[in-house]
């Protein structure tokens, strides 16, 4: 399946770098990875979507779910994305008001969060 997931640490944030296609067929792996991070006590998460070629509504749903989970622990989940084809789906669903979307992992890591 054409989805890549890579986890690293950055200034107290867990960085989940996603690549490839996030659709209803691949999204269960993204959901599991987010749940695992939260279960491991990582409540400040940067999801880096810059290498994502495709993101559908189920991808949005899982990110909203992840945000709710970390907030339940007073945490934060922020996004990195510069590609308009991906940011567009956040815009048209009004989720740009819900997620902080940064231009780079650096910018995200130094954000208030």
């Amino acid at each position: 399946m054409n989805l890549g997931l890579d986890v690293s640490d950055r200034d107290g944030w867990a960085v989940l770098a996603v690549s490839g296609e996030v659709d209803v067929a691949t999204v269960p792996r993204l959901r599991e990875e987010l749940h695992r991070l939260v279960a491991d006590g990582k409540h400040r998460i940067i999801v880096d979507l810059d290498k994502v070629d495709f993101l559908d509504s189920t991808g949005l749903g899982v990110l909203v779910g992840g945000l709710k989970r970390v907030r339940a622990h007073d945490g934060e989940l922020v996004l990195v994305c510069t590609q308009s084809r991906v940011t567009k789906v956040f815009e048209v669903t009004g989720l740009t008001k819900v997620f902080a979307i940064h231009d780079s992992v650096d910018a995200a890591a130094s954000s208030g969060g």
Partner: protein
Amino acid sequence: MGEVVRVEIPPRLEYLALARTLVVAAAGMHGPWSGHRLADFEVAVSEACTNAVEAHRLVDQDGPIAIACVSHADRFEVSVIDRGPGLDAQVLRDLPAPSGPARQGREGGFGLPLIRRLADEVRFESSPSGTAVHLVLRRGDTRG
């Protein structure tokens, strides 16, 4: 009417990527499409296909889902045709605005709003024996 490319896929989520590949290739032959309009349209088509697969599941329908692409003078049109239970007119009417507050509380339900916003035009034809969703990408529209 223009030439038709038609693909049939098994009603399984694994085949959505293939359906997208086909639609993007077919639309690419009939472009150019400005900016990321084709990428946006791809999301709309994918959402319609996802709903079609889910509709087949609801009624244990193993038959294929058909995706037909037609290039017209003024538009490129993709029809996603399923043999699911049909789409309740009420569902379409009750659809909250994409960015309305009802959306953000839920983890699902972003599909139809994305279809409406990312295709230039959408028509639903539905009966108890299935649904056809017609998605339009207009030529000469420079949005996006």
